[in-house]
């Protein structure tokens, strides 16, 4: 089952698609779309196989691979060789993220049927983006992580800037500037860590940091500074409250299939980074920062919710709702106990699915109505009953109806926070009400009401569109009904993290 270079093959499998696309004339639209879709499948199959093998007891460490990559000698310390290796590996959490990435990529590739122009370039960038995302979650080395992290930026920039809506260039630049800033900060952190510890392997750094209780390698102040820088770097991605404005614009302007990936995966890299690096490398500092993270989380939750409440564009509502939901991730992380962290991870997965579903529907509706302005669409339940039903389902999942994944994550995050900071958590609960209020306001104004005359002549969801939606709904419900399906593979990850915290 597990052959050598399994992960490399997994991460770079979309490359095959890119290579094939190079040789296809750019006018053959259906063929290009088919190749684009097929190229996402190997990664999906490989991740699912790995996940099933893992569930059946296979050790994930078998998947780790390491190849020497580059070496250089530190001129001031003779004999000490700095090396950067090509190291891939997974744990329960990152395997989950890999699977989510592969799945959403496939679904987004299907949703890309609505792309109107230059399919060849689109799918090549799309597949490159997938490589970047897969690589981010598989990298076991900070430098490699950073490289993959950057790989995600560039295709996204072009995908937004070229295939987006009205103000796509502006959104793309905003995206690039914010994220470029974030990754610059990240690079500084990585370089400092590398220079101080002499290794860029994540686990090696973790163990060095863990044994460095006297702050010999890195002083306590520097650690704190590095962690704050890390929070800012990933906070841009997540996004955390004052750093979010790029994300709203991207959600509104980017093509929905890309937003599926963006909201589904790219935002989650922020959470992944915070959990894997923030908690893993700086456990003690993270503990002292936890309160602030929780406060930020509550601010995110409420701020996003209140702003979503007055938006008139459905995409904007969803954008602010993403901000709000990422607050739940922060709340979970801030709680810093098993329930909270598990809640945060669940929220990462769950919001990935739900946001993808919502934007899939946005793409379907936008395709037919040519707008996502809530004032201009109504009575969707009449004209497109299936789409309306799925939209309502997605909204309900998003607002945390039990039986769907959103509830589980919200519940666990709050369960965690209530143990540590009950008052803050109680304030945060206001967000639950607000979430219901703004989502219902938005979704009902689209689906319910009298169908406008010009809106009646639209087709309902096509089978090709319904399949991804059905898969997403199925997964959302599956996680909601039997959450242990995820928590099983997370146990060891969370235990490791909590062990690092000394608790």
């Amino acid at each position, binding site marked *: 089952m597990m052959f050598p270079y399994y992960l490399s093959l997994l991460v770079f499998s979309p490359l095959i698609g890119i290579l094939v696309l190079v040789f296809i004339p750019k006018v053959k639209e259906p063929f290009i779309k088919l190749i684009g879709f097929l190229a996402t499948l190997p990664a999906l199959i490989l991740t699912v196989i790995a996940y099933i093998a893992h569930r059946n007891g296979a050790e994930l460490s078998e998947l780790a691979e390491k190849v020497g990559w580059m070496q250089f000698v530190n001129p001031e310390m003779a004999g000490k060789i700095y090396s950067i290796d090509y190291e891939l590996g997974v744990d329960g959490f990152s395997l989950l993220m890999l699977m989510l990435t592969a799945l959403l990529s496939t679904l987004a590739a299907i949703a890309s049927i609505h792309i109107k122009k230059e399919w060849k370039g689109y799918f090549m960038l799309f597949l490159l983006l997938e490589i970047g995302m897969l690589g981010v979650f598989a990298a076991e080395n900070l430098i490699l992580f950073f490289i993959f992290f950057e790989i995600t930026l560039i295709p996204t920039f072009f995908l937004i800037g070229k295939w987006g809506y009205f103000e796509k260039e502006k959104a793309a630049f905003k995206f690039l500037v914010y994220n470029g800033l974030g990754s610059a900060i990240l690079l500084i952190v990585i370089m400092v860590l590398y220079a101080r510890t002499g290794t860029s392997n994540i686990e090696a750094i973790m163990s060095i940091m863990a044994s460095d209780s006297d702050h010999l390698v890195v002083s306590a102040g520097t650690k704190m500074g590095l962690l704050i820088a890390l929070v800012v770097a990933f906070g841009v991605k997540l996004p955390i409250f*004052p750093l979010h404005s790029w994300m709203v614009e991207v959600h509104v302007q980017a093509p929905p299939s890309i937003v599926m990936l963006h909201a589904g995966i790219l935002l989650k890299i922020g959470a992944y980074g915070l959990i894997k690096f923030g908690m893993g490398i700086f456990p003690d500092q993270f503990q002292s920062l936890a309160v602030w993270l929780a406060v930020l989380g509550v601010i995110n939750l409420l701020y996003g919710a209140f*702003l979503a409440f*007055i938006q008139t564009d459905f995409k904007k509502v969803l954008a602010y709702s993403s901000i709000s939901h990422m607050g739940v991730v922060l709340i979970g992380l801030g709680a810093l106990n098993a329930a909270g962290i598990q809640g945060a991870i669940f929220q990462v997965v769950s919001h990935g699915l739900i946001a993808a579903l919502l934007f899939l529907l946005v793409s379907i509706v936008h395709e037919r109505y040519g707008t996502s302005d809530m004032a201009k669409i109504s009575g969707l339940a009449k004209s497109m009953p299936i789409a309306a039903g799925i939209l309502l389902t997605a909204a309900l999942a998003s607002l945390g109806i*039990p039986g769907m994944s959103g509830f589980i994550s919200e519940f666990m995050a709050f369960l965690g926070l209530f*143990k540590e900071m009950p008052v803050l958590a109680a304030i945060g*609960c206001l967000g639950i009400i607000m979430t219901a209020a703004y989502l*219902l306001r938005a979704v009902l104004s689209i689906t319910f*009401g009298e169908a406008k005359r010009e809106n009646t002549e639209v087709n309902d969801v096509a089978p090709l569109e319904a399949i991804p939606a059905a898969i997403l709904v199925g997964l959302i419900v599956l996680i909601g009904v039997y*959450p242990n399906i995820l928590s099983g593979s997370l146990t060891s990850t969370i235990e490791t993290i*909590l062990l690092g915290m000394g608790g």
Partner: protein
Amino acid sequence: MMENAWIIPLFPLLSFLFLIVFGKRLRAVSAYIGIFLTFASFIISLLVLIARFGSPTYKAEGIWLTIGDYQLTAGYEVNQLNALMLVIVSLVSFLVHMYSKGYMHGDGRISVFYAYLGLFTFAMLGLVLSPNLLQTYIFWELVGLGSFLLIGFYFYKEEAKAAAKKAFIMTRIGDVGLFIGMILLFWQVGSFEYDEIFAAVSAGMISEQMITLIALLIFIGAVGKSGQFPLHTWLPDAMEGPTPVSALIHAATMVAAGVYLVASMFPLFAASETAMMTIAIIGAFTAIFAASIGIVQKDIKRVLAYSTVSQLGFMMLALGSAGYVAGVFHLMTHAFFKALLFLAAGSVIHAVHTQDIEKMGGLWKKLRVTGPLFLIGTLAISGVPLLSGFFSKDEILVSTWVHGHTFLFWLAVVAAFFTAFYMFRLFFMVFTGEARGKTANVKESPGVMVIPMLILAVLAIGAGYVNTPWFGTFLGDWLTEGNQALGHGHVEGPAWIMVVATAVSLLGILLAWLMYGKKTIARDWFSAGVPTVYGILANKYYIDEFYKMTIVKGTTAFSRILHFIEVIVVEGIMKMVAGIISGLSKLGSRFQSGQVQTYGTVAFLGLAILVIFFAVTGGYLK
């Protein structure tokens, strides 16, 4: 049989899934599927109830979610209260399914309607079977979801949309209370299991203040769901849904879930005097408050809705007065007679196609079956002796009196008087007197609608006899069997209470008759006499307007402020940073004039600065 109880909710779930997927093709056949599956549920529920008489509580659980060291479980439990509720819910649901066959006849989306009904029934049965608080909460929300979907069934109506939204959000406010209470309780006890919670409470593991806080938070959940003051306003609006839905959800089952929750958490509440007092006060206040509004409403369903709110207040009052049995008993009888009333009202609406009672009248002769059935329901709810409502209401009054809430007792008596009055006002206006609307084409409802009403009428008459001071308190004894915390099966009260209760209800009926039946008292003496009071009542104490002014406007205003912050501060800072950078780069680009001299100047100035700098500092290598 009890080990198979898990199968009960699965039938409606199956119905839901099946109909949502294949419903479009089945159309009218969907009704039969729904009816059949709910009937199966009902039969098994009945079997379970019978089995429960002879054997102890059954409980089965499996691990549902692992969080660190905690294992959260999911499963089902059959105890006395659950078994009773199972039967009530599945029976009413079955009857409503059947009734809807006639009521919704010809509606193009009937399969969706049955699917939603199935979902709701599934959730409600799941709620009833839950062995732990978390599972209760999950189904609690799902019940709300079912209610939301059904209220918004006529999605193209703006009112239905608003009502559905309002119902969802207002109950959610309550749910958050429950959510917080539940989590706090978890960290106190370390488990969501009812058994362990009660064990911890009785062992005194939780401080007094904490219990009070938790109990009140959980009670907020019940307030939201059961339409208690101040979260009651969604319930009358929920009447926008189809009438069978109102009967099922907003009369018999879901709104009673709040009462059920308090009942099933009773040992926790009983441990806090403050919480009990709060429940009693809220209950009594809601009872009289809603009843007073009900007096002046003109929409047949709204009158019934306010009466539901009021009756739920009675139940809460009972529970708050330690009258566990009284509360549950009234919950049961109310389920029957209120469902009957709603179905009968539906039958009336079905016949005359209006809900405005001003446009009805004189229907007694036209609706030969519905009329008497409605009368039975009315008598039952008014507390006329020998019908079920009489016994349960009496039980509540006794509990209240015995518990020492004298003032609340008199409030409840007044509320009972109001109840009798407005119910008979409704009856007289609809069925007697002159026909005020077009009644030419009025026809009695089909059999499929009448049969459920008949069954409910029988129950509305007879259900009271399971727990009477005269023929034995079978229900009470059974409910409290083996559980000290629930109090005594039967509370002995002074006999005059029964007399008073009978007297006020008859007085109410008499007054209604005088005003609306015989018309010896002018109908408008009240509205003309004290128009201010009448206005307040007709506008439901302006609660909706108050909420709109404060909460809705407040939220919007707050959002606008945040939006302002977003635009001015957050974006502003970003714009400022961007402006500074672009300003700097503009400055920089001015040097890129293409003139060699400028470049030379800059390069030389740089050199000069470096030279001077090194000369002053003595150089880097020094």
